[in-house]
């Protein structure tokens, strides 16, 4: 059971420093946290013409929350905002056990490796933190562009 959760891939992503920084040209910064366990991230996105040009994060928390954020960031770069939104929905559906078809999940790339979390209810919030934060960030950025 543990081997399916704490894989090399998760270890690498949770320890990687590459995407841990402040974005100089961030157009939106969103904080997310899990009050029950204390996982925290601050996600910054640089969005131009409806496309995520760059993304980065800072934060502290368990390996699952941090690896999930790192994988999400790598997936987001270059994607349109609409695509990002759809991928977040797909990821959350995977973690909630609603979608488990590997072909369908292939789009999530490395983040699909977190699928096994769907069998661990206590860790679901850790895995989805980044993706919910992304969703909120996108909603806020929509608000900005309307204003």
């Amino acid at each position, binding site marked *: 059971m543990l081997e399916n959760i704490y894989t090399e891939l998760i270890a690498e992503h949770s320890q990687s420093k590459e995407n841990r920084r402040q974005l100089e040209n961030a157009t939106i910064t969103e904080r997310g946290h899990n009050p029950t366990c204390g996982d925290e991230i601050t996600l910054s996105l640089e969005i131009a013409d409806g496309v995520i040009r760059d993304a980065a994060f800072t934060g502290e928390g368990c390996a699952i929350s941090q690896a999930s954020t790192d994988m999400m960031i790598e997936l987001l770069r270059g994607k349109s905002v609409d695509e990002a939104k759809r991928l977040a929905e797909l990821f959350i559906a995977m973690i909630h056990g609603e979608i488990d078809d590997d072909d369908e999940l292939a789009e999530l790339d490395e983040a699909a490796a977190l699928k096994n979390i769907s069998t661990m209810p*206590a*860790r679901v919030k850790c895995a989805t933190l980044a993706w919910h934060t992304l969703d909120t960030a996108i909603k806020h950025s929509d608000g900005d562009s309307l204003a």
Partner: protein
Amino acid sequence: MNKNFLNDFPILRTQMNGQPLAYLDNSATTQKPENVVRSICGYYGGCNANPHRGVYELSQKSTKVYEDARRKVAKFINAKSAREIIFTKNATESLNLVAFSYGLTNLQAGDEILITIAEHHSNLVPWQIVARAKGAKLNYIYLTADGNLSEADISAKLTRRTKILAVTQISNVLGLVNDVKTLAAKAHEVGAVVIVDGSQSVPHIPVDVQDFDADFLAFSGHKMLSPMGIGVLYGKQKILDAMPPFLTGGDMIEYVTEQETTFAELPQKFEAGTQNVGGAAGLTAAIDYLQSVGFDEIARVENDLTTFAISELKKIPYVELYGCDAPNKVGIVTFNIRDVHPHDVATILDAQGVAIRAGHHCAQPLMKFLGVNSTCRASFYFYNTRRDVERLIDAIKTVRGVMKLH
């Protein structure tokens, strides 16, 4: 000799993730012995009726179960009278009752409330709200390096302006025992009312409210072998008599007219609505069980397990311990594993059948003060064994490997 408690606690013989259960989250809630489970079944199977409301025999039986429990609790904590025992659903409700009934009525702008940085949110958030509502100031006693309350803070902050001192007798994070008797005496000297959070003390050490002379004591049944949903507020009768009701409605009234109500006497004044009689039956059985074990034995086992766990953990170079060097410590060991988040530690231990708590333990200001985001906590009760501690230590030794840290 260790009595074999496993016979009385069937849940301790079950498995978790295919491994025998080592239940080390007793500060969160304790397991229930069979006599407690039987007493609840017995109540619902043979005595159930709405207490205080019926003239028929079954209702009288139910009333007796409830009032017997009140007398049992009064004796257990050495209250002067059973009227000083108010049943609530948990310590949180007890503390809210004091904050909103006593606090809102008696505090004025400029008054001060003094609490410690080691309080559980349930002895902290209500005071924040009451302080804000009344324009009072909420002050904190901080800790010294060994985790004990700062004497300097106590002297400086406990003044004539202090109207309320609310303090936990045992911290649910560090397990350190505060000398509430001395604190209460100092607080009374300046005219403050003293509220003791006994959530972690009443289950583990003998508590005598007349001896330490606090004005209020709050605790939860579920942390002392009882079912969830029954808690206690002890208060000195004179103070309780002068306080307005907290919740209002059925059972707590004397006369109700269209525009006016007079309230029942203590303790009914504070017990609005149908009460948890099954829970009270369970609490009575739990106190019986605790008394049959005895607090000397409870202290002996818990000290042995705590000392053993700390000495084993100190041998592991990548384990950091919090508040583990103070002598006045009871049954709780809080730690972190270097470079591993407590959540991951708890998951890895869970897979090996070891149940611990990870997180902020409802004490976020204390976490901030300690400079950590969260911690792991193992907490013991008398039914735990050295074998449980060995399993904890063995599992901790696997953590860094599972996380691919070497």
